[in-house]
């Protein structure tokens, strides 16, 4: 097990290090100027030098992402539960959720920026893209419960509430957590897209706005530095939600149980 564990950590780290090394070599050998392609060293230096500006922007983006994710989770769970209670409601409301999901958020953002104050519009964009996977997975999870278990609850006179709370919600946990993991990444994407849209309208202070701004000024190293921060934020969000999933399913679900060989 230890050998496979080392492989699981060491291999990605080694591959990443090799890629950075290759990037550095390409820049050095071709003597590329930083305004075309900065090397990894230059990007790191910019990250440190511009940290006051970038950290503030990172904080803004992260807080919008977190708010959007929380609202998407609450909204997706609530609507998923409502939909699972009645076919009538499901058939009436689900099309709206689908329309909202399939319409590209970049296209909705300008409208939202007209109707809503800018921070609200950014939050709304992030929420729209993060909401659907939570809803879809909650609905799927709640509807995939072993029907014999549902019968068993009925046999013992369980109320609708008991079936939902003691049977369907725990049974849907794996799907809901998978939806959350997708929603985390999408919330970040939604926030960035909206910020870019808002940025072109001349307002905003998140990481995406800093990227757009640095682009106008041809400050390529800062664009890269901000990009690195965005990627890192996305990876951290994904890892955090994976850890949450692992923690909640550790005792029982096949997806987390390691079979001993």
């Amino acid at each position: 097990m230890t050998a496979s564990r080392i492989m699981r950590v060491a291999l990605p780290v080694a591959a990443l290090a090799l890629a950075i090394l290759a990037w550095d070599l390409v820049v050095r050998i071709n003597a590329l100027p930083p305004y075309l392609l900065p090397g990894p060293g230059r990007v790191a230096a910019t990250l440190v030098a511009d940290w006051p500006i970038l950290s503030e922007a990172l904080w803004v983006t992260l807080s919008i992402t977190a708010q959007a994710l929380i609202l998407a989770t609450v909204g997706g769970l609530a609507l998923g539960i409502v939909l699972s209670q009645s076919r009538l409601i499901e058939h009436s409301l689900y099309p709206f959720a689908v329309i909202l999901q399939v319409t590209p958020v970049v296209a909705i953002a300008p409208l939202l920026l007209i109707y809503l104050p800018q921070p609200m519009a950014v939050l709304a964009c992030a929420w729209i893209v993060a909401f659907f996977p939570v809803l879809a997975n909650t609905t799927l999870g709640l509807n995939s419960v072993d029907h014999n278990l549902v019968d068993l609850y009925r046999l013992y006179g369980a109320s609708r509430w008991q079936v939902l709370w003691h049977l369907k919600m725990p049974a849907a946990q794996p799907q809901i957590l998978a939806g959350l993991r997708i929603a985390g990444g999408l919330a970040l994407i939604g926030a960035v897209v909206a910020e870019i849209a808002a940025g072109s309208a001349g307002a905003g202070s998140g990481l995406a706005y800093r990227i757009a701004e640095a682009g106008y000024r041809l400050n390529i190293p800062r664009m890269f530095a901000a990009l690195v921060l965005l990627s890192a934020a996305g990876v951290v969000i994904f890892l955090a939600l994976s850890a949450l999933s692992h923690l909640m399913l550790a005792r029982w679900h096949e997806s987390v149980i390691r079979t001993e060989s």
Partner: protein
Amino acid sequence: MTALQDSGATLLSLRGIRKAYGNGTVALEGFDLDLREGEFLSLLGPSGCGKSTALRLIAGLAAPTAGQVLWPTGAPAPGSVGFVFQEPTLMPWADVTANVALPLRLAGRTRTEVDSTVGETLERVGLGDFAAAYPRELSGGMKMRVSIARALVTRPRLLLMDEPFGALDEITRFRLNDDLVALWRDLGTTVVFVTHSVFESVYLSQRVLAMTPRPGRVFGALDIDVPRRDREFRTSVDYAALCRRGSRLLEDAMAVPAGDHP
């Protein structure tokens, strides 16, 4: 129908039951059944003959299209009917204790009451050491024991079992058969056991009802009046003879053309 050797009061009567599903399948037609308090009854028949449907009607999980389900001594309250499915049907996120405690929790029993009853029931089915285990950590036979414990935890008047041992290996099945007979003796619960195994039905029950192919009805009965059900009985000439009669009864029942009703 042959005479009952068990003279207990009638617990349940099914009269002229017809059950048709939405897709046009008629699972039961002209199905009659009388169940005596305290007896061990087997419903024997091939797959798809409506055995499981009959069990679901008794449990109240489905309603008959026509006919009556009568409870002469009053309809059962929740918890007075236990059900064991073909699969263990356990909640994988809950440990053995929580799975077995489910019927009591749903009935709103107090914590201390639940704990003592669950502990006692687990001991009874031989799972005393596995109270904190999760279903995935258990073998197929042990999962089925948990399922049986869950069905027994409310001390039901009636225990319905739908081919519970069908997926188990023969050694495990024999052991669970013996334990089931012992539990039935101890608890005095009425049991309806659905199976497609002649040998199992003869070994376990006081009365075997053979069913016709779909749409199912009771074709005939075999009474099994033996003092003991143990390894000696399983290897006895009597057992072999009863199995032969059971097989013949089942063959005759299956020879009834589908849809042919008197």
